[in-house]
């Protein structure tokens, strides 16, 4: 039996965000925007959804009087991502 793919990660932009965060310690909102080519509004919405699911942590602070948003993946997010990749691979292997 195939396991259902995690609906939170199955959206391309959310999957892209988590894939970026899995490789780094923390990243600024502007870095994620630059690498995903998403609009600020869309990115912000998807970041909030990942945060609500407990997959990423978000710190909002001020640096030199400018607002700064720092994102990092949580242990729950790492587990969900690993399971998502495993499930994707099993689907693909079954399709061969």
């Amino acid at each position, binding site marked *: 039996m195939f396991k259902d793919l995690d609906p939170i990660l199955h959206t391309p932009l959310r*999957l892209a965000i988590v*894939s*970026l965060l*899995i*490789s780094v*310690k923390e*990243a600024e909102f502007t870095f994620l925007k630059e*690498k995903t080519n998403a609009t600020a509004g869309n990115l912000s919405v998807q970041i909030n959804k990942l945060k609500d699911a407990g997959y990423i942590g978000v710190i909002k602070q001020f640096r030199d009087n400018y607002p700064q948003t720092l994102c990092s993946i949580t242990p729950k997010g790492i587990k969900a991502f690993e399971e998502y990749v495993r499930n994707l691979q099993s*689907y*693909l292997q079954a399709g061969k």
Partner: protein
Amino acid sequence: MEDMQQRLDLIESMIRKARNNFSENGHLYIVWGWVIFACCLVQYFAGSLMGYKQAYLVWMACWAVVPYMIWYIRRQKKREKVRTYTDEIMNTVWVTFGISAFLLVCVLGLALGPDMYKIVLPLYLCLYGIPTFLCGVILRFRPLVAGGIACWILSLASVFTPVREQVLLIALAMIAAWLLPGYQLRSRYRKETAHV
């Protein structure tokens, strides 16, 4: 099924993008490389050849670079948009080196007094090799790996070199371990950031 493959491709491309974020621009390698290189030459030519007894004071220049280095690192931290695990490990390696270098000169000075000059430079050459080699491996950057090995070879060679000339081996080590790799890191950084 095509959709699944697209998802895997997306994951792969994002991980590659995050990993290609090369943050080492070689600036501090170049600054420290030149400062220590110049100190070595002044110490040798002014101190050893021309006999100026105060020539060793040139090493005070290193203390002058420390506030600049702190200011530069803080400025870079403010500018960085992403912090990788590689950055964290590299920082720890250099902090470890800084503390060890400081302690080494203190311990040898206290234990051996003026006799420490017979042993301090070979030990420093050995010590220079450690962070240089490690950072080369972490960054997968061969010139730094080669620089680290060069330091260790020079450390061995210094045992067979008169104490007066040992300082020239430090100057050579600066070229091999910090200056050449530093300029190569700078050009690699410029190339990579130009593609972003």
